[in-house]
């Protein structure tokens, strides 16, 4: 029996303790925001927070979450669904293309900004280089992190001349 907290809800279920958190949250708990990308912790699409620390859920057994707190993309927004500054910046900068990797990108960026409210380019590189985006939205992710951290005006303001 696995017991942990998922997005502030207690969870208890009978599951192979070796099963990665990714498949437990997706297939057993119906939370599909966390994505399968590679299965070997090489792409970051499956990034969740375990006690606040970003981990690759495809390669982290649910046994490791025992008694701990797992946060997924579904648990990032406020109690009434209000988006975080990062999520808002992702919209203002029109970051996603296909969007498949973006849950993982946002989880990595969320941990970065919590620990470092005003990250430099090097800080962003260090925190975000584990997350692959095949659509190539890296420059927009960088801008969105800077917008969310107040280092850059949102696009609507920057480009107010263009609708």
């Amino acid at each position, binding site marked *: 029996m696995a017991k942990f907290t998922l997005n502030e809800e207690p969870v208890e279920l009978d599951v*192979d303790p070796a*099963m*990665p958190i990714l*498949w437990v949250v997706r*297939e057993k708990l119906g939370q*599909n*925001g*966390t*994505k*399968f*990308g*590679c*299965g*070997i912790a*090489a*792409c970051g*699409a499956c990034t969740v927070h375990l006690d606040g620390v970003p981990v690759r859920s495809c390669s982290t057994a649910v046994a490791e979450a025992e008694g701990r707190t797992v946060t*997924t*993309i*579904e648990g*990032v*927004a406020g109690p009434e*669904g209000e*988006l975080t500054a990062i*999520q808002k910046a*992702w*919209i203002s900068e*029109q*970051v*996603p*293309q*296909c*969007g*498949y*990797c*973006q*849950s993982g990108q*946002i989880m990595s960026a969320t941990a970065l900004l919590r620990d470092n409210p005003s990250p430099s380019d090097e800080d*962003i*590189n*260090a925190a*975000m*280089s*584990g*997350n*692959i*985006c*095949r*659509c*190539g*939205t*890296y*420059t*927009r*992710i*960088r801008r969105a992190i800077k917008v969310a951290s107040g280092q850059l005006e949102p*696009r609507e303001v920057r*480009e107010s001349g*263009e*609708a």
Partner: protein
Amino acid sequence: MNDLTPEKNPSRLAKWSRRGFIGAGVLAGGGLLIGIGVRSGNPIDALAPKVAAGEGEQLVNSWVKIDTDNIVTAIVPHCEMGQGAHSVLAQMLADELDAAWDKVRVMQAPTDGSYIVTDTARMFVAPFTMNAADWIEPTWDGLFTQIGRFADALITGGSSSIRTTGQHQMRVAGAAARTMLKGAAADAWGVPAKEIETRDSTLIHTASGKSAPYAEFATAAAEQPMDQSPKLKDPSQYRLMGKSKARTDIPSKVDGTAIFGMDAAPEGLDLSYAATLRAPVPGQRVVSMDAMRAKGMRGVLQILNLGDFVAVVADSYWQAQQALNTVKVEWTKPESAIGSTQDQFDAYAAAIDAAGATGGEEAAAKGDAASAFEQAATIIEAEYKVPYLAHAPMEPINCTAHVKDGKCDVWTSTQVPLMVRTGISDATGIPKDAINVHHPYLGGSFGRRLEAVYATMAVRIAQATGYPVKSVWSREEDTQKALYRPAELSRFKGGLDDAGKLIAYDNIFTQRHDPAEASVPGIYAIPNTSVRVAEAPLHLPFAAWRSVDHSQHGWFIESFIDEAAHAADADPLDYRLAMLEGSPRHVAVLKKLAEMSEWSAARTGGRAKGLAIVESFGTIVAEAIEVDMSSGSPKMTNIWAVADAGYVMNPDGFRNQMEGGMVYGLTAAMYGELDLEDGTIVQSNFHDYRMLRMDEVPEIKVAIINSGDVPVGGAGEPGLPPAAPALTNAIFAATGKRIRELPIAKQFA
């Protein structure tokens, strides 16, 4: 030169239909697909149950529904794979409809023959008719729609959605719906329709003071005759087109609620999960299977030998994959003589050698190249090679299948839902009209999901088990058992006159797919040109990979032109400009690029710039890259791009596509490589099939030129082809080392 007008190149049509863009010959044999796809007679009664199930929703024509809250829904036939087509197509329809943008919603059209994209199909079958207005005007009622249906023409690809379906279906549908709404209001109000204005989803008759939301007349509008060729707006009248409207799908992609194929969780279905193993070499079949260990593993339900692949079905995908990893399979002997990467390139070289100086199939010819070489003062020669590539979209291949009572439902990410339906029918015998293909968002594709195989595999598993199954491919399966951008070898010979001018150009290569013009240096005024193809075996199955043949030829041609400039001791920009004198759009794009990138500024440190220009999918794109070689290996420090697509419908969305195309192309240029050993692919996942990451992609600046008065060009692919040559030309400028083989990174390791 390869003239694209049909009367000058009658073989062109046959070539397109024979080769077929998506490789399966699904398009009707040379038939012209004409018409806007808005059929007269308003097939609303038949379609409404499929798309307007909601309370109070009224389908006005096939592409527009309006509900009682005055919400306008654009029914979009193309898939959304990150290119933003859903939003921009809705933007185009809404503009012609004069709908209030904040009241516009987007709906994925169902997989139904009524939603074929006739104009996209026409682009693939008969591209030379695309911009002839006379071809578009007559709507030949059922005829061409029937051809499109036969051809399963519900395709997203070829950077075509905006310039075909957008320009010739969505805008027409929006304008027609507006006319129908006005007609209905005119009848009710007893005023002439021409006195009624439309604005923000509202009908207004100023003289009588009457106004009403569209919703009030949606039902009556559906009874109005359909205007087959309504007058479309002039650019000066656009309110939404040309504006960077935020994409409608993005909010769901930042909170985890967007549904991709992988996320399909059909209501009421208790899913089991399958992991699959295909043959290591294409064409092999199962001889025997040892699944003893897998049988006893936790969660395993069934182990299936399906002849061409093996599947393990379990309570979870992870359990299925763990069990599958223990299954030992013996396969039949491979049929291909090609075992290694070297074998593939040897086969190419042998074919090119055999063709000699004049052999092979002519791809383009102009002037007299043979004589011109005799007059040349300088001869330059170069051979370039590029490896096989996988698409590697972030969402692994998957399909959820449910077969019950002779009916089949599948949920999958696909660029070709009707082709998937046909593929399933062919593989299983289930009639097409009993198959329903649901296609949610695609987690990237880039050409990967233009086939039906993975869906047919899922349906065969569901048939064998008798219960609904979600079939998921591992990353390793998708890297090693898919369809591939072909490896290619290309040889060039150039003749320069005393002044350094390129007067003779000869090129021979082995892989010609689409678009046919990709290998032709058609933008340049080179007086004597010979481009030839030597037939050679291709070991791995062909895939259209973002920008298709332009992905190889863009690099070949723009590298060779750079080599010619160097041989002529000319600046690479000036050398190109001199060959583009008759092409003002190309000149304008290059000049803008030179200004943005400060091309002529003095170099600093180990940094240098390279540039390239490629026209593809109707869009001219020039790119410059600055590279820093001070560490001994290339580090990109700045990227600039200038694009002329005629008219850009959503500038920010277009820029996003240019950025993405460049990163995709530069990823391949730096790292992309699949090697063969014993006929199978060596690389397996992102650790050995590397991607560019955050720390390697510098700022990208994109400028757009709306030159207007030309057909609208594509966005998804044209950013890619100039990226690799701009980078390798920059490396040459910095180091004098000419890169003639991709990928780059290992050459500096």
